[in-house]
């Protein structure tokens, strides 16, 4: 097992008029799985490709295991990579694909074959070793790609949205599998995704990127519960944007007084508060000011959209058992739980709702 630390220092990269990376700093501890999360075009894939050596940085340093690898070409960087697009060599069987990297390392045929079989077993596809990529499903192909990347015992594992092309069920399954395998082999891993659920479920730490920089990095719970900026609050998870007023270290929203997350630096006065749907409670109340507009059933939970006076919409998350009491047009009362919230003085600070699954309110 070889776990090394990875450090990206002040990485910058410009493509024509686009500043893809703008002084990105990122540290990965040995054996850690860090997910870079962000909307498309935020530079997360560029960062991964620079680490892989497939792209050059304009400036900055790339340290792997304490050595600067900036001048090492991609084929000597010793990194295993899984791509978003299916990348298995079509003319080779699954087994031969996994053997490819070992063959280049001049391993003896028997050892090579044994190692490749072992890897295919690890990713749960040992039975399909002799199949060609065209004969495998998308999920199976990505498993083989993972086996191929791990077979060479890379210093670093790079996963570039490996699950994006798969359908929902396979995606969740393979996601959990990737985590299990990563923990088992203990390879330092950088995982790039635009899917927040994926990042939160998989990573030791999640780094949220925006415009070529890290907006926040921390354990998934921290990023979700205490987003450092309105952008993070908006991009990670669903947020209601509710008008409020900041003063005395709290924000007053819909009549409730909510604490601010630590480090908030917004001047007193009107502001937008970002409130999670699970912090919103809805109760049927004939005297309530709200009116149920619509409900969407999500299995155990449901989301209810409530219209409030003043053209304000609020999305609340409730147990789906309560849906029966809250049909559309029901008059309701809306309560906010007093959990710390992020506020924004400036609306343009937050993420573009079109690029993620956040509520468009």
């Amino acid at each position, binding site marked *: 097992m070889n776990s090394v630390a990875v450090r990206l220092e002040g990485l910058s990269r410009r493509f024509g008029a686009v500043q893809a990376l703008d002084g990105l700093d990122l540290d990965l501890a040995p054996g850690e799985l860090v997910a870079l999360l962000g909307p498309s075009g935020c530079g997360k894939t560029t960062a991964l490709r620079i680490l*892989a*050596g*497939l792209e050059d940085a304009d400036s900055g340093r790339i340290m792997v295991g304490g050595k600067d690898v900036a001048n090492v*070409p*991609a*084929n*000597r*960087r*010793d*990194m*295993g*990579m899984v*791509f978003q*697009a*299916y*990348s*298995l*060599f*079509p*003319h080779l069987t699954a087994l031969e694909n996994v053997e*490819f*990297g070992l063959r*280049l*390392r001049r391993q003896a045929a028997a050892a090579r074959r044994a190692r490749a079989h072992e890897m295919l077993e690890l990713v749960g596809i040992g039975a399909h070793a002799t199949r*060609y*990529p*065209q*004969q495998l499903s998308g999920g199976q192909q990505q498993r083989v*790609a993972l086996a*191929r*990347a791990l077979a*060479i015992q890379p210093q670093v594992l*790079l996963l570039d949205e490996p699950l994006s092309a798969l359908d929902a069920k396979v995606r969740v399954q393979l996601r959990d599998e990737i985590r299990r395998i990563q923990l088992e082999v203990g390879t330092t891993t950088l995982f790039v995704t635009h899917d927040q659920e994926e990042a939160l479920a998989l990573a030791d730490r999640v780094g949220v990127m925006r415009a070529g920089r890290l907006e926040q990095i921390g354990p998934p719970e921290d990023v979700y519960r205490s987003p450092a900026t309105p952008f993070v609050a908006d991009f990670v998870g669903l947020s209601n944007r509710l008008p409020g007023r900041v003063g005395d270290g709290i924000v007053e929203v819909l009549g409730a007084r909510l604490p601010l997350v630590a480090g908030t630096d917004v001047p007193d006065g009107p502001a937008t508060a970002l409130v999670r749907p699970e912090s919103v409670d809805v109760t049927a109340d004939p005297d309530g000011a709200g009116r149920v507009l619509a409900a969407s059933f999500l299995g155990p939970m449901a989301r209810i959209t409530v219209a409030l006076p003043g053209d304000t919409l609020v999305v609340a998350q409730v147990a789906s058992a309560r849906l029966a009491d809250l049909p559309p047009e029901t008059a309701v009362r809306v309560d906010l739980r007093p959990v710390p919230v992020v506020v924004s003085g400036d609306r343009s600070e937050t993420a573009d709702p079109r690029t993620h699954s956040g509520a468009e309110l």
Partner: protein
Amino acid sequence: MAGLVRRRVRRQRILRWVVVTVLGVFFLLPLFAMLEFTTRGAGGTLTAETWRTFFDWRQLGETYPVLWAGMKASFGLVILSVLLTLLLLVPTVVWVRLRLPRLRRTVEFICLLPLTIPAIVLVVGLAPVYAWVVYFVGGSSLTLTFAYTILALPFAYRAIDAGLSAIDVRTLTEAARGLGAGWATVMWRVVLPNMRSAVLSAAFITVALVLGEFTIASLLNRQNLQVAIDQLGKSSATMSIAVSLAALVLAFVLLLLLSFAGRGLRRRQREGSAS
């Protein structure tokens, strides 16, 4: 209703056979005439004399030294032209696709250019160039390789570009590089095996083209098969026709192989996606 459909299907089938037959006759009749001419003996008898000579290499070389020289030259030209065309095109097209996608239109334009220039014009331009070629590498007929490579570019480019479009070269290349492959290994182990049928088509088309080329060789005073056939036609008509027929059949067989190579690949891909 069903009867109407059946009648239409039958009519279409008849039409199809008519077309195939007419075209077949159109193509095969001259070939048959050539065969008949080469087997015509004295007093209207049938003789295989010409063909016996043709297949007896030693005697052929002794009896028709010009033809022998032309065959050897064409054979060499075929091999050299195919090699040069592939060596020139495959890495260029791959590189342009990976690293200089903006140049793709330009490269395509340049490669298609020879198609628009008549051979006679090409020769006018080539003559002074060949003065230098003679100066540097001598006046051997094999120097026609350079001209033939240019002639083959449009066809070979099309074939290779199409083959490359069928695979995700960028991802495959990056995956191979990540696994530790240098550029040479990437080309040899990953790119080429996945565009084998495209490379094969490019090669076959080049072969057919080189075997059939007369104008440039003749005008530049070089020797090749077609020039030899032309010269032979003045002394031994039967043998020249026999050689022409053999060359035609060879080219036909090559093109047939080519279409089978393409079909084989398509079938494999279809089977793959079906399972």
